[in-house]
C-alpha cells in the first residue's frame, strides 16, 4: 500500500464526511426554517399530488428554465443529463456484482460524459459572450465550471487516451467502503480526476451547488395553493394573534 493510496483514501473520507455533514446541516436548516406566509408562484397546484408533479417536471425537465431561455435550457440539460448518465456508469465501481441496468448503461455513460463537457463549455462560453451573464459572473462561477470540465475531461481521457487499471480502481473504492485501503493506480489523469471529484464534494455544501437540495425547499414551488381553505401559521407568528383587539 503506497503513500499515494493512503493520501487518496484520506482525501475521499474527508470529502465524503464534509459533503455528508455539510449537506445534512444545510438541509436541516432548510427543513426547519418556517415559512411565515403562503407564497407559491401561481398558477400553482391545488393539491400535494399536484405539487409532486410540478416538482417532478421542474427537476426532470427544468420546466421554468425551458420557458425562460432555450439556450441555457439546452446546455443545462446536456450537462445535467450527461452527468446523470456518467454517474450511473460509475456505479460499477462501488457495487459487486454489477446490477443489470448499470451494465446496460455503460456505453451511454461515455456519451453522457461527452454531453456533459459540451454543455459545460457552452455554459462557460455564455459567461464570456453574453454581456448580462458576464456582469453577474463571479470568479467562483468560473472556478466551478473549470472544476467540472476538469472532471469531465480527465474522465474522458481515461477512456480515450491513457487507460488505467480499472479493476484496481474498483478494488480501491470497494476497499474504502469497508475501511480496507487498497492500492490505487497512479496514472496522472486518474489522480487528477479523483482529486477534482473530491474537491467538488468538499465545496458542495459551501457553494452554489446548494441549488441541488435548495430546489426541493423553494416555497414558491413547493407550496400548495390552498391559502383560503387552510390557515397557515408559523410558530413564531402565532403569539401575535393574542395582541389583536378582536
Amino acid at each position, binding site marked *: 500500500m503506497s503513500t499515494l493510496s493512503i493520501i487518496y483514501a484520506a482525501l475521499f473520507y474527508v470529502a465524503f464526511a464534509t459533503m455528508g455533514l455539510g449537506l445534512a446541516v444545510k438541509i436541516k436548516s432548510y427543513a426547519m*426554517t418556517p415559512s411565515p406566509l403562503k407564497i407559491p408562484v401561481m398558477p400553482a397546484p391545488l393539491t400535494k399530488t399536484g405539487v409532486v408533479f410540478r416538482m417532478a417536471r421542474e427537476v426532470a425537465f427544468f420546466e421554468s428554465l425551458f420557458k425562460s431561455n432555450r439556450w441555457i435550457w439546452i446546455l443545462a440539460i446536456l450537462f445535467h443529463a450527461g452527468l446523470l448518465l456518467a454517474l450511473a456508469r460509475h456505479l460499477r465501481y462501488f457495487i459487486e456484482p454489477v446490477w443489470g441496468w448499470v451494465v446496460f448503461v455503460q456505453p451511454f455513460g461515455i456519451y453522457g460524459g461527452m454531453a456533459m463537457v459540451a454543455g459545460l463549455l457552452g455554459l462557460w462560453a455564455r459567461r464570456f459572450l453574453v454581456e448580462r451573464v458576464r456582469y453577474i459572473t463571479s470568479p467562483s462561477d468560473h472556478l466551478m465550471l473549470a472544476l467540472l470540465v476538469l472532471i469531465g475531461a480527465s474522465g474522458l481521457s481515461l477512456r480515450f487516451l491513457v487507460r488505467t487499471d480499472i479493476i484496481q480502481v474498483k478494488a480501491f473504492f470497494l476497499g474504502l467502503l469497508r475501511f480496507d485501503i487498497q492500492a490505487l493506480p497512479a496514472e496522472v489523469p486518474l489522480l487528477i480526476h479523483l482529486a477534482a471529484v473530491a474537491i467538488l464534494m468538499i465545496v458542495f455544501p459551501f457553494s452554489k451547488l446548494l*441549488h441541488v437540495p435548495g430546489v426541493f425547499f423553494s416555497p414558491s*414551488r413547493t407550496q400548495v395553493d390552498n391559502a383560503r381553505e387552510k*390557515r397557515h401559521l408559523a410558530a413564531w407568528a402565532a403569539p401575535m394573534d393574542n395582541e389583536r383587539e378582536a
Partner: protein
Amino acid sequence: MADQQFETPAFRELRDNPPIKEGVMDHSQPYVAKPEHNEPLGFPGELVENWEEKAVAKLGDLLEKNKALRVYLDSCVKCGACTDKCHYFIGTGDPKNMPVARQDLLRSVYRRHFTTAGKLFPKLVGAKEMNKEMLDDWYKYFHQCSQCRRCAVFCPYGIDTAEISMAARDIMDHIGVGTKYSNEIIAKVHVIGNNLGLPQPALVNTMEGLEEDVEEETGVQVKFPVDQEGADVLLITPSADFFAEPHVDGLIGYGKVFHQAGINWTVSSYASEAANFAMFIGSYEQMHKIANRIRKAALDLGVKRIIFGECGHAWRVAYAFLNTLAGPWDFLDPKYPRPQHILEVTNELIKTGGITLDASANDDKVLTFHDSCNVARATRMGDVEGGQFTIPREVIKASVNKFVDMDPQTICEKTFCCGGGGGLLTDDLIELRVKGALPRMEALKDVVDNHGVTHMAAICAICKSQFSKVMPYYGFDMDMVVSVHQLVSEAIQLGTKE
C-alpha cells in the same frame, strides 16, 4: 424631484434586450422617511448608531424566520435566466435591475456574514461588507423592484426577488431608513383606516355623492352604505376607489352588481382600505396589524361575507395572507370563499343569471386586459388553477363585444408589472415608473395598431393610477385605462329583473 429630466424609452422593434448601461439609474431613489413617518410604526426615526451590525443582525433574524430567504440566498447559480425578465431592466438597461444582480446586493452581505465561503474567501464568491456604499445601493435598487414576481416564474429554482427586496426593506426600516411614501401611508392606516386619510364623514359624503350620481344617470336608487351594522357583505376596496379616476367607476360597478343581485352590503370606515402597504416594506408585524382592522370591522358589523374590490397587491394579501394574518374566519358564512373577490361574485352572478349584461352598451370600445402582476402570480380566483386569468376575461367578454388579448409573452403568468407596484407609485420615482412601463406599453401598442384596441382594462388600483399617469408619455390617452367593473357598470341592466 419635480424637475426630473429624462427621455421616455423608445419602442423596441424586435423586443431585443437593452445593452447594459452601468449606473444609469443610480440617481433614482424615493424620498427618505422622516422620524415622524418612521416612529409611529415603531421603527427608529433615523439611521441608528452601529447600523452596520444592526442590519446584519436583522438579516440573521429574518433568516431564522423565513425559509424562502434562506433557500433563495443559497440556491442561485447565476445562470442568467432572469436577467432579461424585469421590466425595470428592460426599460432602463441598468444591470443592477437584473433580478439576480438585485438579489446579489443582499446575497453578498449574506455571504460575508453567514457563509463559510464568504468569511474565508470574500473576493472569490462576491461577498461584501455592509457599508455606506452598500446601503445606498440597497436603498436605490431595492426601491426599483415592484415585487411583481415575474423573475420567479422563470427561475429554475423559483427564486422570488420580491422576497429578497421585502427582506432588504424590512432590514432598512429597522435601522431607520425607510421610504416616506410607504411609511407615511401605513401610519395613516393605523390611525384613520385608509391610505388616503379619508375620515368617516368624508367617506359617507363621498358615498352619498355616488348614490346621487347613479340615480341621476340611471333613475335607479343604488345604495352605497357605510358602517351599516348587520349587512351581509363587508366590501373592502382600495381607498382610491372612493375618488380617483377610473377607479371610482369600478366602485359604482360593484354597487350596481350588489344592488341588482339583492346583496345587502356595506363598507367600513374603520377598515376602509384593501391595500396593505406593509407588504411592500416586508413587515409581517405591520401587515398583521393592518389586516386585523378588517377582522375587527367584520366582527363589529356582524357581516357574513367579506368581498374585496379590484386591487392587485390587496388581493395578494387577501387571498394568500389574510387567513394567516387575521384568520380564522370561522365566523363568516362557509358557503362562500373567505375572502372573496368581487370578480368571483360578478362572474358567478353572470353565469347564474343573477345579473343581466348588455354588451352592446360598450360597442364604442375594443378592449384588452392587463393582468395585474400580484393577481396573476400570487393569487387565484375561483376554484380551478388559473382562474385569476379566466374569470376577469369572462366578465369582460360578458360586458363587451370586442376583446383582444395582448402578446402571449406579456399576459397571464408572464404579465408585466405596470411599473408602479410594490410601493413605488410616488412622483419622486416618476422616471423609473415611466421606463418600467415600457414592455406593457409596447404590447399595448401592438394591439392598438393591429386590432384597433381603444381601452385597456385593469383590476388594480395601482395599475389604474400608474397607467393614467404614464400612458401620455407613450402617446396614449390616459382615459384608455378602465376598471373591469366600469365595463360591467355600463352593461348591467338595472331593474329589469324582478
